[in-house]
């Protein structure tokens, strides 16, 4: 339990550092948000009034504390370009991106784990080699290109879905989920190659260990040793990888949303970067930081449950 509290404390400190770095970085970059909002014809008086309204006239530490206090309560300020609450803009789009991420996480595990176990089970055979070669190629395909290939294959040639035909969940739930399957597949494919590789090599590493020999000498069948003993131990690095994979999947989703025309978080992040709408950019980065750090926290705790020696 002490371990968990210590971890929580370090997560909070990390989040605090992230928020400080991100806020300061975006506050000190050149450019006047009031000027870009009012246009170059604005008078000095109206600019000053706008700055005051946007809270830009205060010193930076005060702005940071105000922002932090708001952020803790879930208020991330107002978007420069849309004059909307940033929090509601994000909340609107978050479910779409989360669906994409959960979908791709599931697909990644469903493809990578069985194939990794199977390839290691058949180590040295022709099937193993074929899986390895395909995997190596799969790992080299960036998600946006696999997205284009999937669009070409399933959208243009096989006509399983209409490219660019995204429908919102409230209009057509079935259509939404079937459409989301394809981008999720595009995000998941390169990642599944990594999980396959990792599981494969950690399983093969286990094969040489003493406890495996002991298990055999006690009369276990090779299936029992493989699935009963080795798989459990080899799964530990895989759990850690899942945490890292999730972080990568957020980045992957941002790109894939552009390939498939999905109006998710990636879309607002990009338009906000292009419009220099920094409150939105900062809020999305903080949100991603919370997700990434939170998941890594869960992974650490899970790790501790699987292997109690960790962290002592």
């Amino acid at each position: 339990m002490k371990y968990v509290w210590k971890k929580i404390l370090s997560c909070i400190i990390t989040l605090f550092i992230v928020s400080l770095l991100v806020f300061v970085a975006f506050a000190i970059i050149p450019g006047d948000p009031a000027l870009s909002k009012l246009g170059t014809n604005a008078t000095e008086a109206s600019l000053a009034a706008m700055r005051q309204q946007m809270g830009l006239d205060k010193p930076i530490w005060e702005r940071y504390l105000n922002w932090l206090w708001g952020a803790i309560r879930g208020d991330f300020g107002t978007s420069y370009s849309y004059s909307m609450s940033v929090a509601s803009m994000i909340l609107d789009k978050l479910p779409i991106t989360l669906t994409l991420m959960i979908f791709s996480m599931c697909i990644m595990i469903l493809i990578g784990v069985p194939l990794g176990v199977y390839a290691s089970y058949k180590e040295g055979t022709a099937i193993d080699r074929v899986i390895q070669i395909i995997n190596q190629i799969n790992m080299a395909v960036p998600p946006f290109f696999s997205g284009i290939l999937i669009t070409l294959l399933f959208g243009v040639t096989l006509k399983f879905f209409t490219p660019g035909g995204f429908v919102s969940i409230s209009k057509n739930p079935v259509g939404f989920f079937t459409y989301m399957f394809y981008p999720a597949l595009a995000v998941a494919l390169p990642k599944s190659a990594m999980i396959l590789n990792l599981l494969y090599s950690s399983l093969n590493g286990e094969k040489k260990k003493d406890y495996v020999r002991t298990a055999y000498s006690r009369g276990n069948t090779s299936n029992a040793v493989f699935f009963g003993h080795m798989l459990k131990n080899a799964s530990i690095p895989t759990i850690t990888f899942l945490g890292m994979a999730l972080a990568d999947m957020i980045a992957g989703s941002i790109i894939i949303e552009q390939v498939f025309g999905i109006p998710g978080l990636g879309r607002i992040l990009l338009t906000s970067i292009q419009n220099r709408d920094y409150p939105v950019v900062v809020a999305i980065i903080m949100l991603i930081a919370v997700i990434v750090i939170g998941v890594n926290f869960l992974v650490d705790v899970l790790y501790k449950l699987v292997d109690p020696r960790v962290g002592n």
Partner: protein
Amino acid sequence: MKKKKYNFNFILGMILLALTLIPAFVGLFWTPYNPETMDKTLKMAGISLKHIYGCDNFGRDIFSRIMSGSAITVAIALGTVAFGSIIGTIIGALTGYFGGILDEALMRINDVALAFPSLLLALVMVSLLGSGKYQVMLALGIAFIPSYARIVRSEYIRIKNLDYVKSAKLAGAGEFRIMFVHILPNAKTVILSSLMIGFNNAVLAEAGLSFLGIGVQPPDASLGRMLSEAQSHLFTNPGYALFTGCTIVAIILGFSLLSKEVK
């Protein structure tokens, strides 16, 4: 059996890199056609002897564009790796060798940076620095510093307690001489293989940023930007996307096959 596999990976990697990097290098000086010249009569022209990859929606020769595009992509990746690895090595060497409060503080920041996917970090950097090929190089370089620093630091911590370093100290070698003349050459295998992985990540990240439209800006065309152009003509001219994408895959596959052998 083992020997044969080594050769296969190595040869395939070399072939893939030769097929992609030689045209990229030549593309710096010469391309069969001007990659920016538009020709209405050749709009979406198919594959022919004159235009081996066909032409795009403006009638520009795709092969010439891929040549100059891969030159830009490779140049940015090289610049990124050079920048990130030099600064990362210096930071890693200093923190690993001296330790102390500076080490603690920098590694905390490093932990934070490493928690983010590098593409996202690069996105933040680009939004701070602006778009364009030099900005992308700088943004990606900064985004890649933490991972190099981490790797070099752990190598330095491992090596600094070895006997030969102690004897160099006894012989009166200065701290910086020990750091860069004695320790650095012994860390080179680890650094080299992380350079190759870093190169691949840089190609991927550059392509990703440019694909999103916030990387390289026109008239420069990198492979990522070309892929996003090609995507809007996927129905009428799938060859453009396929050839461009396969070039990226070939570069990455070639390097990862080679880096397997370096290890």
